[in-house]
């Protein structure tokens, strides 16, 4: 494990929004097929870190690598746009608020990018949409509009949309925290299924029990730093750091009777 080259490699990541330093020298190595959970209080920089990986929030310092490609390399604007568009095809992202395209049917939500970027024919794209939607259990809704779906269904379509580009890594930013409690499980099941297929995943979550059950590693972030990291049983059952303990005590209060 340790002698393997990391698949996603974040080195000395630093990010400021103006005078506000949100990420302070973050280092994170994720191996191929590994599943990493990021937990921490609101405002600790979890989303910013995740969004830095596909350059939605470009870092102000440090490097991010995916396999042997540096994601945030310095290039003139035009070249950089080309480069980042290609990189982003390899990184799937799932948002808290789904962000499905409301003017397109479920089918087109999934096929838009593959058609535009991979030159798939209509028939190939449709086949792909069917396969991906089947995987997330949304095939029956292929000709619905997003407005006709529940939150859980929307999120499953959003996952299918990301998977349709055949990404190497999937990023989840609180994928279930905008959902009604009874809809959380269906999305978690899809994520578990991806885990079983050894998809490399970085998951920002508030659901400690879910994190514990699917993740290989857990990072606890607070105020822009990784305070503690380790295997889930250690972080959740036996944290060393006081801030981790404090956070978990508050968060597990409702979850573990």
């Amino acid at each position, binding site marked *: 494990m340790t002698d393997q080259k990391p698949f996603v490699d974040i080195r000395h990541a630093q990010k400021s929004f103006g005078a506000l330093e949100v990420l302070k020298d973050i280092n994170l190595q994720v191996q191929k097929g590994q599943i990493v959970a990021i937990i921490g209080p609101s405002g600790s920089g979890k989303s910013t870190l995740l969004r830095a990986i596909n350059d939605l929030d470009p870092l102000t310092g440090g490097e991010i690598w995916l396999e042997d490609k540096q994601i945030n390399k310095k290039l003139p604007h035009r070249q950089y746009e080309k480069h980042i*568009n290609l990189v982003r095809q390899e990184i*799937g992202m799932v948002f808290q608020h789904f*962000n*499905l395209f409301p003017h397109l049917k479920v089918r087109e939500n999934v096929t*838009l*990018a593959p058609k*535009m970027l991979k030159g798939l024919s209509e028939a190939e794209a449709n086949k792909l949409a069917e396969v991906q939607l089947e995987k997330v259990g949304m095939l029956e809704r292929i000709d619905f509009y997003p407005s006709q779906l529940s939150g859980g269904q929307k999120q499953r379509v959003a996952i299918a*949309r*990301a998977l349709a580009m055949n990404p190497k890594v999937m990023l989840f930013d609180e994928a279930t925290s905008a959902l009604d409690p009874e809809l959380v499980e269906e999305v978690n099941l899809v994520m578990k299924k991806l885990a079983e297929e050894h998809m490399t995943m970085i998951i920002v979550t508030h659901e400690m029990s879910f994190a514990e059950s699917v993740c290989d590693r857990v990072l606890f972030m607070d105020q822009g730093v990784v305070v503690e990291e380790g295997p889930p049983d250690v972080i959740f059952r036996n944290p060393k750091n006081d801030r981790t303990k404090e956070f978990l005590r508050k968060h597990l209060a409702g979850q573990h009777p």
Partner: protein
Amino acid sequence: MQRVFPFFLEAAWITILLSVLTAVLGLICGILGTWARLSRFALLRFIGAAYVSVFRGTPALIQLFILYFGGPQIGIQLDAFEAGVIGLGINAGAYMTETMRGAIISIDKGQIEAARTVGLSRLQTMRYVVLPQAMRLMIRPLGVNINALIKATALVAAISVVELTYTAQRYIGSTYKPFEMFLIAGALYMIIIYVTGQAVAWLDRKARIN
């Protein structure tokens, strides 16, 4: 009275022509203005903002006078009709710029992020994700802009384009019936505006359905 009707109909036709040409030019200027306002280049953004504030910040009548009476002084020779279309079109474009830009920036940023994260370029994101949604939002407010520009065509009477308002004024002298003359002109404007409004409402409904 009877004998003036054909002239009014002809004038109504001129008003319609003015309105259509002004709307087309306005849309073109609006698209250019929007593109400038949303550019990633500061200079273009500045030019776009200056265009909007100058043309919305001064009376359209003054703009027409500058173009038509002042133009020849700086080598711009236009007949009254041309000056009317160009002056009103550029003016309408400033309002349309704000309408279009408003619709575009009102699209949730999450839409753009979702499109970019699957690898779509800026242009593809604009074309396939933002514009289709923004277009639906802009139909109604553009309808309001068009309503305003139809009424603004009355201003070109002041540079002697023989459209409805000018025609009404002209036949007051021979008929001594200002009340009727302006009533006829007003009714014809109302018909033009009503039909246009129905067309816009129809487009809006159609856009909402699919």
